[in-house]
């Protein structure tokens, strides 16, 4: 019986294919945008996991050297002492236009279930000349077709697409390495050595093998923002679905009542409605996932470049089809469709059999409805005001944003109705008065689409402001952190002394970047020592500072703390801070330190060496030199000293690279902006097309009174523009509040640092123009249809009983 009811319901779509297309496209677009973001995030995380797996997946101790190169003797020393140590070489291998990370491992000591070599160890070919390159299937195919003289390539699904794994000897040859390795991994469970690592290799830095976690923490902000954008796009898409489902329900209300009167129980009607929506969700979900795959494939290269460049996170630029986001896509499409249909199902369950057979208007305009909406909006705004005071954490941040967005969306129709009412009072002339009154009458039918547009615009303004603010802040931060023209890292302290002497004769200033690992207020962290120099006083803007903060640091009495540690500790200026052993130093200022999850402090250089003595790493320097002479000095350094691979870093190229990475980030944001706006424009198009077919009886009398069809059509376009601009006016403050919430609440909750908010009025105006254009595009077809409609169609409305 449910099948008969279902077929009866489905027959509606045969008569209304445009409406069906609207519903399917709306749900597909919503799913596509959500899935694309999920696909990108899943791909990035999989890349982090694969990269981490080559270093033991977090189970191993990872030893590195500050200079980037570890003498091979260190490894042999560890092995002789009994440690289960394994050497690794890491480098970049350029093949054609692509750059891969070539990772050389020592197969006998590295073999284990966590590594890409697999639990059974490598095959014989891996160990014997000419060796084997293990690569992801796509990478393997690419390498096989290259003209380079490479060892045989073997495909392995366990290897990241950006990586190539090979024997350490092969890697050393391909990367032209001498007796230096990059990483030593140690399995602490398998075979602890006799001597503690801190005594055996004190010069090496130990990490607990949580490199993947660090990458995830660093990139978390980026993924969080992508997810937020995906969710907003999904919500915008759902507005289309909600509107289409609501309209179809109203159109089928009489049929449902008839079917019930003919003996179909309410349970059959509900089952049929649910089956219909699930069937539609599966169709739209599949289309959305395919579309989302396309969007993600197009965006992933830019996202990957951003993540690689900005955070050093190894993310492949190619997308693999993963079951998890297929499942996630179908789940979100079905849940979204069910959510959008819930009201209709509820109405169907309570549909009285004996109510009037006349179909209700799709949406009734009523001041009571507006009052209710405004009341609900006020409650949501109240919740938004309360949430930060009573709750914290990332969930509270998202709840705050949701309350702001949906409160504004609910407020939009009453706000527009009020604006149009005021407009009606202010206008003179019969056409203008009719236009305002008629626009008010159209509001209920258009409100869903306008709410979708408002959400899209607010999301654009909010996320755009956040990204642009981040860009400005990041540029400033680069200036602060990269104030010196050159950065030099030496191999050891002897070389450090020589290099310093060499540089002092050839530069304006040599600024030691010396540091020591220690505990800051019982948190593991790093403390830097700096000399008193104008570079810091001029370039390091402090978020909060006491007067004469730099003097206090130079005298060894004061300490600067990075923002996230300061926020975690929640302490006022002047608080004594313990830094390792010895007396506490007073907190005199706070500086920004984006992307660093660890505690960090800056004290005077003398204070650093006094406190930590031999524990101070004295290998790095910032060099102030005339920018025009920086290149010559770099060359001189490289000629005179055997510096590590990244021994001299040029400030200008690092900045240029970082900014180019940001440009690609912007490309991602811009693409998502356009996609979200497109979805909103489609929502308007769908609503306007539907309304156009329903409102001929309202236009016919005006036409009969003397307004031409073309003028009526022009007025339709004007109406769309007016409504879109009024919507933009509501979206602007909403977007700015959203940006504030993202920058000042969500970021702080998630990552411990707050970004300053910058305003970009030019972007807002550009968005207003885009909103108006989207409205014109959406209204163009219905307006054209009206302009070319035959007079007979108008006349018929007078003959029909309505």
């Amino acid at each position: 019986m449910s099948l008969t009811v279902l077929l009866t319901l489905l027959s509606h779509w045969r008569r209304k294919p445009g409406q069906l297309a609207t519903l399917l496209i709306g749900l597909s677009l919503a799913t596509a945008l959500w899935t694309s973001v999920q696909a990108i995030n899943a791909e990035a995380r999989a890349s982090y996991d694969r990269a981490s797996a080559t270093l033991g997946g977090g189970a191993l101790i990872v030893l590195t050297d500050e200079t980037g190169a570890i003498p091979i003797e260190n490894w042999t020393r560890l092995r002789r002492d009994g440690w289960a140590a394994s050497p690794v070489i890491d480098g970049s291998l350029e093949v054609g236009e692509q750059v891969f990370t070539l990772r050389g491992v020592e197969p006998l000591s590295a073999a284990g279930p966590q590594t890409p070599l697999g639990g059974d160890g490598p095959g014989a070919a891996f160990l014997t000349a000419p060796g084997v390159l293990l690569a992801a299937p796509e990478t393997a195919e690419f390498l096989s077709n290259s003209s380079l003289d490479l060892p045989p390539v073997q495909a392995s699904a366990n290897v990241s697409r950006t990586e190539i794994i090979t024997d350490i000897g092969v890697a050393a040859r391909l990367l032209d390495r001498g007796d230096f390795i990059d990483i030593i991994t140690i399995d602490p469970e398998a075979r602890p050595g006799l001597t503690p690592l801190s005594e055996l290799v004190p010069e090496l830095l130990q990490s607990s093998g949580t490199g993947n976690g660090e990458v995830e923490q660093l990139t978390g902000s980026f993924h969080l923002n992508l997810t937020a954008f995906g969710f907003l796009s999904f919500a915008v898409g759902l507005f289309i679905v909600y509107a289409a489902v609501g309209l179809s329900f109203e159109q089928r209300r009489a049929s449902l009542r008839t079917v019930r009167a003919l003996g179909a129980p309410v349970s059959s009607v509900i089952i049929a409605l649910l089956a219909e929506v699930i069937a539609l969700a599966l169709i739209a979900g599949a289309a959305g996932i395919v579309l989302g795959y396309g969007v993600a494939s197009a965006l992933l290269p830019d996202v990957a470049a951003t993540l690689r460049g900005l955070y050093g996170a190894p993310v492949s630029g190619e997308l693999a089809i993963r079951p998890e986001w297929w499942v996630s896509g179908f789940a979100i499409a079905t849940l979204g469709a069910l959510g959008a249909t819930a009201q209709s199902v509820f109405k169907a369950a309570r549909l009285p059999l004996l109510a009037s057979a006349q179909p209700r208007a799709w949406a009734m305009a009523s001041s009571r409805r507006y009052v209710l909406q405004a009341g609900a909006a006020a409650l949501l705004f109240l919740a938004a005001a309360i949430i930060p005071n009573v709750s914290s954490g990332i969930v509270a941040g998202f709840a705050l944003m949701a309350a702001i967005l949906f409160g504004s969306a609910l407020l939009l129709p009453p706000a527009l109705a009020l604006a149009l009412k005021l407009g009606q009072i202010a206008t003179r002339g019969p056409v203008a008065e009719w236009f305002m009154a008629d626009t008010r009458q159209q509001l209920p039918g258009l409100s869903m689409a306008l709410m979708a547009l408002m959400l899209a615009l607010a999301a654009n303004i909010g996320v755009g402001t956040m990204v642009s603010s981040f860009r400005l802040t990041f540029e400033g931060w680069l200036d602060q952190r990269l104030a010196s023209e050159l950065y030099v890292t030496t191999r050891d302290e002897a070389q450090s002394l020589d290099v310093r002497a060499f540089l002092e004769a050839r530069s304006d200033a040599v600024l030691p970047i010396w540091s020591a690992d220690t505990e800051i207020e019982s948190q593991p962290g790093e403390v830097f020592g700096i000399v008193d120099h104008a570079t810091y006083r001029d370039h390091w803007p402090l978020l909060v500072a006491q007067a004469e903060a730099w003097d206090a640091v130079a005298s060894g009495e004061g300490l600067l703390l990075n923002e996230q540690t300061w926020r975690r500790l929640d302490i006022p200026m002047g608080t004594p801070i313990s830094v390792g052993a010895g007396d506490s130093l007073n907190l005199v200022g706070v500086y920004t330190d984006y992307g660093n999850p660890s505690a960090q402090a800056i004290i005077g250089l003398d204070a650093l060496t006094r406190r930590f003595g031999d524990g101070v790493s004295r290998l790095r320097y910032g060099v102030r030199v005339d920018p025009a002479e920086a290149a010559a000095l770099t060359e001189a350094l490289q000629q005179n000293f055997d510096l590590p691979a990244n021994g001299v870093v040029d400030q200008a190229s690092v900045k240029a690279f970082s900014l180019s990475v940001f440009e690609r980030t912007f490309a991602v944001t811009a693409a998502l902006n356009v996609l979200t706006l497109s979805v909103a424009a489609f929502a308007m198009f769908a609503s306007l097309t539907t309304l156009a077919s329903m409102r001929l009886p309202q236009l016919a009398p005006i036409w009969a009174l003397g307004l031409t069809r073309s003028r009526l059509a022009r007025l339709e376009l004007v109406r769309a523009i007016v409504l879109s601009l009024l919507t933009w006016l509501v979206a602007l403050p909403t977007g700015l509040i959203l940006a504030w919430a993202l920058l000042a609440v969500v970021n702080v909750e998630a990552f411990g640092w707050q970004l300053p908010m910058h305003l970009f009025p030019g972007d807002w105006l550009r968005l207003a123009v885009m909103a108006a254009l989207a409205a014109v595009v959406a209204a163009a077809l219905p307006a054209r249809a009206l302009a070319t409609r035959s007079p007979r169609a108008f006349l018929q409305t007078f003959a029909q009983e309505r």
Partner: protein
Amino acid sequence: MLVKIDHLEKSYGSGEDRQPVLRGISLEIDRGESLAITGESGSGKSTLLHMIGLLDAPDAGTIQIDGERVSDLDDKGRAARRRSQIGLVFQQFNLVPSLTVRQNIALQARLAKRLDPNWIDMLTERLGLTAFSDRFPEQLSGGQQQRVAVARALATRPALLLADEPTGNLDEETSAQVLALMLELCADAETALIMVTHSIAAAELLSRRVHLTGGRLS
């Protein structure tokens, strides 16, 4: 006896606004009988028909159909009796606009799982709808739409056909045609007919007539 109604009462509203519509109606209808219910507007004709058709429940009194007390059934039970034992014809036709004529006619029979294609073909032919069977309701005239509604109501060969002002929206000539066909088909299917009507002429075509005044039979 097919239908037995005993002291049926129904009111709408509550408290001071309570409006009694049916006041102790008792009535019996035999198999194959045709009964016209007439009365002024607001006399309770349609309400009585809705009670008999199990579209609404009485406040007091009982209804038995085919010996079964149906007035106390829950929604599911009422729906089951409606689709298998009762045919309904409304003044507004109430066809499903997205189904063709043929699909509309077969709709209740399919819901009741009693689809007999030969019977449907016969009904379609007798009601002069064969040429329109692939059309949609909006492509038909009022008289044609009402004939589709009659065919749909008789498609399950119900024991009871309830018609609420079936000719209220039709002109005189079409009304007479539809009514004649309905009576003819009811006689063929041995279906009892209860029809609510304002038209004395239409009522006189049926075998028995009752008049409702202020919720009471006279």
